[in-house]
């Protein structure tokens, strides 16, 4: 859990308080805190003067606007057909081994979440993953080890 503090107000000042500001505000919170808490959504509703149900309704529609706890680095592994054909399972395997979590879980130190996602538009360089917004392509288990080690050192 995090304290949302002044973030909602800052984001509302930046994007405005009209209904169409809702997505950029929610995206801004996720960019900073990786997921949306109930408190954050209630705060957004108050700031935009709309019902909390509307905020939750919008947030829960979008897979990148997570409403459950996510780590600092969200790893999304593409599972659509080309990535699936070109070794997605080996990539999942090595990530599960390294992070000691299963798909859908978050490490206990809240650093990494591992989830599967639908086509991310890198089929010609499959298999591919996103770590937060950064794409990594043409992966092998060896490359994955290097990349994740890099993130572990970033802590």
């Amino acid at each position, binding site marked *: 859990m995090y304290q949302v503090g002044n973030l909602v107000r800052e984001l509302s000042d930046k994007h405005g308080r009209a209904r*169409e500001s809702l997505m950029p505000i929610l995206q801004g919170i996720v960019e900073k805190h990786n997921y949306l808490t109930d408190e954050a959504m209630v705060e957004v509703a108050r700031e935009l003067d709309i019902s909390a149900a509307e905020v939750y309704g919008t947030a829960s529609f979008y897979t*990148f606007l997570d409403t459950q706890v996510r780590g600092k680095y969200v790893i999304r592994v593409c599972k659509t057909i080309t990535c699936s054909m070109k070794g997605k399972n080996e990539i999942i395997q090595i990530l599960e081994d390294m992070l000691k979590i299963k798909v859908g879980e978050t490490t206990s130190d809240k650093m990494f979440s591992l989830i599967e996602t*639908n086509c991310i538009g890198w089929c*010609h360089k499959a298999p591919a993953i996103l770590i937060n*917004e950064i794409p990594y392509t043409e992966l092998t288990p060896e490359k994955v080890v290097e990349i994740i080690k890099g993130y572990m050192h970033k802590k």
Partner: protein
Amino acid sequence: MEKGLTKVDLIFEKTDPKEVLTRAFNMKREDIIRDVLESGLKGRGGAGFPTGLKWKYTAAEKEPVKYVVCNADEGEPGTFKDREILDKVAYKVYSGMAIAGKAIGAKNGIVYLRGEYRFLLPKLMQELESFHKLIKDIGYDFKINYCLGSGAYICGEESALFESIEGGRGEPRNKPPYPTSSGVFGKPTSINNVETLVTAMMIIKHGPESYSQLGTKDSRGSKVFSVSGDTPKPGIYELELGMSVQEFVNEFGDGDTKAVQVGGASGFCVPRKKFPYTVIGFEGVPTGGSMKLFNSSRSMYNVLRNYLEFFAEESCGQCTPCRVGCQQLLKGVEKVKKGEVKSTYLNELVKLADTMKVASKCGLGQSVGNAFRTIVENFREEIIY
């Protein structure tokens, strides 16, 4: 109608935007629309609606506020050309939007970029700043903003995309009214794919005659293809329309191609025996660019199952035929595979897919049956055994 495989360089060709924009801004609105109509350009996102008509209808609306929306929510499995176009020639996308704005009488443009491409945004914003300076120098008033998606395939559907821009759930609207009369914020809107906008700009540059000489009667011009799967050279290729699947496979296959999925998960599966006489284009199998090759080592059951899982997750859930249909098709093929039901159950599933085609609210549910039917019909034994 015999057309070979000809490579074209139009979309990525280096172009001086100032020259083309100055020409466009000095043209009459109706002349821009006439040129785009005469070129025969059809939308490059997949649905293939004539771009000139879309502009003409939007231009005819009396409402003072109108919008140009660039659909950069490229989510169809196997499509990645719009990312490449934005990465390499964003200034041409912006130019196409400004030209569309001139044609329909809009001062505002919105690019809806899928969340998966957020890493491109800083660079795109920088280029946008230079673009705004450029059109100001030319003396034209047009402003573009960005909206980001957050991981929902359905937002590529135009009315779902508007809902998303407006801050709501990406659930498609009933049509009519069509976007040309009531689009984003209820205003007349011309919504065009990234590639369509660049192509329109190049039609203004080279003239409609030279463009319409490319391609065939039903599929004018060239198209950027996203090639992936079992191929020695996956990537992005701009090719003249009108080639057969056979010619495509001769160029991109690995020598053992048994099927090509044209148009992504919502497209059509073409088996080897139909390669020679199936044309890639609106007279045969249409595509927004996605071309996936499968060789004989692949199980078409796995391909179909993967697509159905995709649709079951990405269906917005608003209308029953699509929400329940996608789930039942997925469960159904799994049951057939496990032998829990007779193989004739597949016939019932095909009927369900056909029902979804007529009963679903939007293009997602309506097109699930394309891949389902063509894979089940051509690879029935792989689904059963």
